């Protein structure tokens, strides 16, 4: 029974291996900071990942609420749209108006949510 869980172990080991490799390889192969260069860009280059934002954040770091709101709304609507794909795939083979009606209903509910978000001003960047 337990040997069924072997893939999980392999997966965890691979994860640790790959993650560790990327973190350490960067130190070995990545460009070294030039001596005496104390600019923040040079310090930033020492990070294991470069993504434009500092990857280590102090606890007083402030995150823009507008950004958070838009990101959250994006995720909500983004996830909902994923549900449309499987329906699109079977719509032709089912050849049924019912399926189409279901999708229209689903999108209508999403539209209500969009109206709410829009009228509440959550889409305005403040």
């Amino acid at each position, binding site marked *: 029974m337990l040997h069924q869980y072997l893939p999980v172990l392999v997966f965890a080991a691979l994860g640790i291996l790959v993650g560790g490799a990327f973190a350490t390889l960067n130190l070995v192969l990545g460009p070294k900071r030039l001596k005496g260069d104390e600019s923040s860009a040079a310090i930033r280059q020492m990070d294991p990942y470069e993504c434009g934002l500092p990857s280590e954040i102090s606890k007083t770091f402030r995150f823009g609420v507008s950004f958070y709101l838009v990101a959250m709304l994006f995720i909500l609507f983004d996830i909902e749209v994923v549900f449309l794909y499987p329906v699109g795939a079977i719509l032709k083979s089912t*050849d*049924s*108006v*019912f399926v*189409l009606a279901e999708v229209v209903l689903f999108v209508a*509910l999403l539209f*209500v*949510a969009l*109206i*709410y978000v829009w*009228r*509440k*001003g959550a889409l305005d960047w403040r």
Partner: protein
Amino acid sequence: MSFDAPTIDYAGLSPVIALTVGLVVIVLAAVFDSVRRFGPALALLTYAVTAGCLIWQWNANLDLVSGSLRIDGLAVTLSLLAVIAAAVAVLLAIGDPSETQAGRSDWLALLTGSLLGMVILAQATSMLTFFVGLELLSIPLYALCGTNLRRRESLESGLKYLIVGSVGSATLLYGLAMIYGASGATGFQAISDGLQAGDGMLSDSLTLVGVGMVAVGLAFKVSIAPFHQWTPDVYQGAPTPVTAFMAVATKAAAFAVFIRFFLVALGPLADQWDVMLAALAALSIVVGNVGALAQTSLKRMLGYSGVAQAGYMLAGIVTATQAGVDALVFYLAAYVAMNVAAFAVVVIRERQNGFSDDISTLRGLGREKPLLAWPLTIAMLALAGLPPTAGFIGKLYLIEALVDDDWTWLAVMIAIGTMISLGYYLRVVATLWMSPAGQAEAGAEIDTASLPPQIAGAQADPFEDSRADRRWYLVAPALIATAAALFFGVIPQPLVDFAQHAGDALSVWIS
């Protein structure tokens, strides 16, 4: 193209459909100024239609949506209790700062969303609908707890409930995954069949851990000790209409799925998990009652009392008999009446004295405003389980069901818990009637400097409404609930039939 729809039982789904349509209308009402003030009317109309659909489906007994939902006596009765609690919350919230600050219809949309989760949860017969219903119930409630945006306690209670609730949900989900691993099924009936074929949970660690984690997750939701620590804080900090809704409706819906999951899906293991639930029930009774003794805040005391009451109700599941389920549903129905009466008075008193729910603010109320003092007195006596109230009959049925199934020690625990509880319930009654008037302490000072900035569209500072005890929408719930608690204490038969309707739905699975 043709219109071949699968067979869908729209009649059986009608309560869920009615609530969903109502929810959409309320959400739209929130964004159009001209209809915003009709929010409470729309919400009450939605609940009335939902209740109508539930009563229409009273005798239904069928699986819906390929066996993910099931509408039967248990679902109908407990959904009705949740709908009643939501309607009361709408009335109690009219003019409440939480409702005005969050935007009236937005608040009501959250409430309706939570209620929709409860109705789905009461019908859930598959792990997926179980979890979706539970989250739909919980997430709007987290937000509702924090809707009193200008009170730090309210925001704190929302955050606390969110964190603790998420831990509970995660535990539950993990447990469900393990039970799926052990039984290879997601439907409750199929889980039961899968577990029947296995060799019990004591020799199969996967099932054992799964059952334990599901019990812990559900115990978080119904606030069973030792997973109750959030209850007093959240009950005290949340706006009182939300507390009233949370105390009553969440328990009804969560106990519905508690009953269904343990008696149907885990039914084959009943003589293995009953000891575990019995220990939780006994601990809850002791911790809740002893914890309530030292409280000075009425809402906090009702929170601890809710922990103890959840312990009494859990005892009904321990028996795994139809009599136990009947007693549990009877007790829940009585609990709705008692708690609504108590919280309605708390709401009125809070509005009159600047939102303090300290027990000392009740001094001399008996002489000054008997119309407020009587509902609270009867609610306290009913919660304590004194005759002639529905609380007494409820405890009687629970104890009877326990003794019949050889759980005498748990019945004795209920009796001991009741004796301890007299200590704090009667203290409230004594404050109401036996202390001189006019010494109510000033309401909690509100430190304006520490308040979070007002959000757009928010209005209304903390206010006092000295005429709150004459507003029909606050007084009527208190009086009707009090009348119900007394009526069903004297003539319990209608409520017994109601409860038996729930128990009969499970007659296939339990004796």
